[in-house]
């Protein structure tokens, strides 16, 4: 007896719905098993991981704060990826967005008028766009591979940030520690609730809905998909693939830059040598976990955020290692990708004797 994968004529609509559920079920079963091996009751472990973070108002807010930047960046990337442009450097655009957005609070802290915050947000988006325009220019002008150029620029951006907070932007009253001054309250995003839920998170969700509209209801959305799936057909339709490269990079760069300025002005409130736990890279996973659909990306972002928050909760309440969080994330992604194969293939059991007869 062996298993064989047979390609479906058309992708299975049933499996589109079933596969993520199956993936989560498998993660939960295997995760429970690992908890048991760890000497923790599986039910208690899963509760701490997946339910506890959802049963208080505070941790729901924290979940949104964690998922916000992931969603915002992933939505921009999904436009890029759909048009077959590969921006891998959102992490760098995030960093430059944060740096540009911090120019006002660090260099002009006295300017506390009501225009300061909108100006910071605008500058963050511009910073991200500028950084993204470098790989776009290289690609359209010289045919340079954008995967490499955008990725390499991440490290340049991080070293630039490192230089600024250790050098010229260091807090003058901070005992020479590598941190910028703390932002004035006029330069901090408005917050809601009793926690750290800030305006940026809401903007991320609004942006996701707008991009969903753009992709599914407008001619531009059609252009993006045509150029992504068949550049030649797109050219016959009069669409320019160079213009699309620019569009994809500038849009995703702007969103990553926005996420950067939201992070520093909404949750950190100063510049530090490290401002992102890899949001720009995790967002790539979120974009694909959400199958490049902006609405699904909101849920994918929340799910990944939950795995972080849940891991932390489990550390406190059960005393298990944070490696468990990594294991859970790994399992979840593995099963999601593995189950996706059922959308395009079906599984068939093959009896070896029959198979042998076929050959004879």
């Amino acid at each position, binding site marked *: 007896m062996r298993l064989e994968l047979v390609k479906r004529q058309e992708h299975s609509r049933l499996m589109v719905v079933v596969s993520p559920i199956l993936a989560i079920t498998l993660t939960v079963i295997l995760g429970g098993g690992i908890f048991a091996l760890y000497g923790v009751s599986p039910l208690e472990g899963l509760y701490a991981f997946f339910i506890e973070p959802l049963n208080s108002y505070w941790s729901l807010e924290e979940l949104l704060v964690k998922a916000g930047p992931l969603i915002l960046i992933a939505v921009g990337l999904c436009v890029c990826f759909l048009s077959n442009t590969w921006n891998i450097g959102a992490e760098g655009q995030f960093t430059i967005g944060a740096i540009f957005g911090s120019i006002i609070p660090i260099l002009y802290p006295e300017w506390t008028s009501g225009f300061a915050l909108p100006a910071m947000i605008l500058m963050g988006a511009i910073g991200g766009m500028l950084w993204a325009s470098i790989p776009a220019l290289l690609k359209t002008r010289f045919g340079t591979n954008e995967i490499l150029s955008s990725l390499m620029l991440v490290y340049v951006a991080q070293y630039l940030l490192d230089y600024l907070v250790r050098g010229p932007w260091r807090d003058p009253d901070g005992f020479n520690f590598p941190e910028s001054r703390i932002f004035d309250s006029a330069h901090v995003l408005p917050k809601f609730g009793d926690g750290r839920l800030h305006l940026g998170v809401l903007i991320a969700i609004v942006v996701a809905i707008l991009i969903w509209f753009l992709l599914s209801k407008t001619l531009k959305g059609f252009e993006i998909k045509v150029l992504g799936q068949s550049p030649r057909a797109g050219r016959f339709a009069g669409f320019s693939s160079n213009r699309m490269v620019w569009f994809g990079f500038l849009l995703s760069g702007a969103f990553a830059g926005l996420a950067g300025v939201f992070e520093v002005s909404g949750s950190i409130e100063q510049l530090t040598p490290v401002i992102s*736990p890899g949001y720009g890279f995790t967002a790539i996973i979120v974009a694909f976990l959400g199958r490049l659909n902006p609405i699904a990306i909101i849920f994918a972002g929340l799910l990944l955020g939950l795995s972080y928050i849940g891991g932390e909760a489990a550390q*406190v*309440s059960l005393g298990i290692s*944070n490696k468990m969080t990594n294991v859970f994330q790994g399992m979840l992604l593995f099963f999601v990708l593995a189950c996706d194969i059922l959308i395009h293939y079906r599984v068939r059991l093959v009896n070896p004797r029959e198979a042998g007869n076929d050959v004879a």
Partner: protein
Amino acid sequence: MRKIIAMISAACAAFALNMTSVLPSQAKEPLKVGFVYVGPISDHGWSYQHDQARIEVEKYFGDKIKTSFIESVSKSSDAERAIERLARSGYELIFATSFSHMNPTIKVARKFPRVKFETATGYKLTKNVAPYGGRFYEGRFVIGQLAAKVSKTGVAGYIAPFAIPEVIRGMNAFVLGARTVNPDFQIKPVWVNSWYDPGREADAAKALIDQGVDIMVQHTDSPAPLQVAQERGIKGFGQASDMSRFAPDAQITAIVDYWGAYYKRRIQAVLDGNWKAENTWGGFNQDMVHMAPVKNVNAELVALAKDTQKKISDGKIVIFKGPLKRQDGTVFLKDGEVATDKQLLEMNFFLEGMKAPLPN
């Protein structure tokens, strides 16, 4: 019927017993003490030493306290959530063990005025936030003396993480110690821009040995430089933990971060109801810095290390005492003048006579 009555009365009795046993124990519920670590606990290094101390206090206080920890909290937006999670879960004393946790702790502490917070290597003191740290530079003076005694070339290789005051102060103290033996002693630093990067630390150590240094000092957390020293047959010093098992023939001694005594004092203060937010910067005399057993050198040096440590502890040796000049020739301390803690905390220059330039 009688049976039922008997059962009910038995249940009532049991309930009453329960109540009486619950009530007094509630009054004496264990003090919940939370720890936040910047890295994974691992088996050596900064976070490991804090966790060793956590285990020590848990043993010492028994059921009077309950401890929990959250590890690998390196980004400030995650730190705020981790610290707030502990505060919300009823932890009354929270040790945030990294400099990067300071500002997040200050923010959380404002929301939880009754919870007591402590930040390692921080400098901000508020009503319920107490900064604490170790005078590890005292240990660096001791190993400076040993290095100058052992080295024939008069040049030590120095694997340094970042040019921040903590590291620069340590280098200056090391050189001052070495100069008590050899007035021309020099260090050759390599800045690896990381607290923990075994690959880069090992490469740096190899390059330094190729350039002729014959003693290895590190301010980074991995045992890699010592392991290289062991392979190449030179001697060196461990950092944060006793690393002799990684390099049994190479490690002379190590500067060990020891938090157990401090944590015992602070927890006892909370239990006694006399905890106060205050700034603690303790060295040998407050039992916050230990030296690993001195090995791989002759008895004379073992005795010298012990003697120097005692003199520093008793105040007979004052490490930063005038006349001292900065590298650029300007006066740092006049004859007989002793550096203030503020001067030490923001020290961002090398002393006169050091040939290596300081980055930034």
